[in-house]
């Protein structure tokens, strides 16, 4: 069960590397939220109401509903549609596959007996995928998606190494990330209104 969810998660990451429309990016992030919910629930050893409640809030509500809703609203307000036309989908796919191979190799050398190797590898792949999105895409919205992919990767990573932080700390971390995304979304809209741009190439007015 967990393995099939993990494989689906990897597929979403590969699809994300070649998806052109931002609506598809948002849908994939929502699906990733659902998959993370399934994975976290499947890994619960016993019934803990508080822990279960937190997983539901963090994955199902926060990652699968609230964040995609914020992103959809940004898409509607800014009317951005797709990644830059000059972007090469083939190049992005190759980069993604290279990242997958690199993740497997690093996992092989790094993971110790306390670490779940499959989780570790997929989490690393998610982190690299997020970074690739940020580096290869020109549109600011794609950077926001990359940041969220990294955040999902960090969530998987915490499961890979079996770290269970206290609920209060987890809650504080989740709130911090949520507020950051709200503010990023707000400023993205403001940039569209004030500078009339949604591309990173235009953000070069501050330099020495």
């Amino acid at each position, binding site marked *: 069960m967990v393995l099939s969810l993990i494989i689906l998660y990897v597929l979403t990451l590969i699809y994300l590397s070649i998806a052109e429309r931002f609506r598809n990016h948002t849908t994939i992030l929502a699906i990733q939220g659902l998959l993370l919910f399934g994975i976290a629930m499947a890994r619960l050893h016993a019934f803990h109401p508080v822990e279960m409640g937190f997983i539901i809030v963090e994955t199902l509500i926060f990652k699968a509903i609230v964040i995609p809703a914020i992103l959809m609203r940004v898409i509607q307000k800014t009317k951005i549609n797709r990644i830059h036309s000059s972007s090469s989908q083939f190049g992005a796919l190759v980069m993604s596959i290279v990242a997958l191979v690199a993740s497997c190799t690093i996992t092989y050398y790094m993971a110790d007996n306390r670490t779940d190797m499959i989780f570790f590898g997929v989490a690393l792949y998610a982190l690299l995928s997020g970074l690739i999105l940020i580096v290869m895409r020109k549109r600011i919205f794609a950077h*926001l998606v990359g940041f969220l992919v990294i955040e999902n990767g960090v969530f998987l990573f915490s499961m890979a190494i079996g*770290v269970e*932080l206290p609920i209060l700390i987890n809650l504080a971390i989740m709130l911090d990330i949520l507020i*950051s995304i709200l503010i990023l979304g707000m400023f993205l809209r403001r940039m569209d209104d004030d500078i009339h741009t949604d591309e990173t190439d235009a*953000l070069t007015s*501050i330099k020495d």
Partner: protein
Amino acid sequence: MEMLIYLVISILLAVLPLVVRTERATNIIAALFFVVQAAGIGLILGFGLMDGVMLSIFRADTIAVVFHTLMTAVLGFVLVHSSSYLKAERISTRSYKAYYTLVMLLAVAITCVYYSDNVAMTWVFLEATTICSAGIIYHREFQQSLEATWKYIFVCSTGIAMAYLGILLLSTVAEHGSLDYASMSMAIVNGNPLYLKVAFLLIVVGYSCKMEIFPLYTVGVDANYAAPAPASAFISTALVNAGFVSIYRIYALYASAEVFEWARHVLILIGILSLAVGAMFLRRTNNYKRFLSYSTVENMGIVAIGMGIGGVALWAAVFHVICHTLVKSSMFFQVGIMRHIYDSYSINRIGNYMNINRVGAVGFILGTLVLLAFPPSPLFLSEVMIFSEIVANGSWWLLAAMLILMCVVIYAIWSRTLRLGYHSNQDELHLSAVNRRLSYSAAVLLVVAIILGMWQPDFLREAIDTIVNIG
């Protein structure tokens, strides 16, 4: 309980300006906020709360109290200078109130970083400083401030996400999920060396955006450039110190780890790269605020090298951060006063400051000399101590690299300062904006720094001794 009361009062006071109507009421609230900070420190020192654990996640240890005291001192000047600065900018009452709310919230978040005794909570509060800073950076609402704000939030959030990854790796050593620094420093001995190395790299790189060192220093420079000058004084000192304290706590944690030697080499490398970046961009930039920000990068590079060398250099590094706070905030205040006279920060265009505002010019030139570590600058003392430890270690290549880079820094900073003081001015002047009282008040911090250069009181020496006692 005391910490909870302090936090509730501070946060309430911070948001109170949003419901009052006038700027005068906002100023009174800001003054009250300052009194609460000072009272908090007084309570810790006077009622035996030192080293006490508060709310399970805070601890009033020496490093926290020292940096909270410094922050409060700078905050007092920030609140006074901000009032004059914002009035001269003729902003709306709404913006005025919002600015003060954000500065006070940032102060609360920074205080929490200083006192945090939990690896994960330090991360949480550092991320909170990003959110509070964002509003301050965007405060002037021009195109470049929007760009700076976006970059700041995005790079800080991504960088800090990386640091979180490092914290997760580090927490594999934690026993029973206990993430306080004391428990972790005992458990780290048994940690997987490879995990510990990767964790250290990720955390230092992530927190570098706050301490303004290589590699993520750029967002701090942009933030200082876009924010109002008094807020830049706060960001470039109190927030930078929050980054320093966070990295220092991790450094102290690693003292008992097998990979400590490796971690120190990483800090030396980061330090020398920061120094190189500072030297290069101090020559290139054409803006006085960016100029001072690159000087922060350079100074924090020296601090990282001091931490990497260890021994006496570690003592010097902590002393350097304390004195840099006083000097740099003073210089940012002077630059804020300059802005209203010239309506510009352009290095190539403004000049003749010695004849226009002699008090301000003397304050700025004196500040430059202290920043360049000319005796009796306290930075002279710290840099000599770092050099002596480098020589004692036989790291001649490091000494040579530092000396070459610091020569470039001295040339860049001094030539630009002379230009401001004595070259002809090409910009329009607003002589009515000359405010000598503000220039004098900014110089107070500088005078304190110079006194520390000549005489370090016993309590300060003992405090730094306690901070560096990490063995």
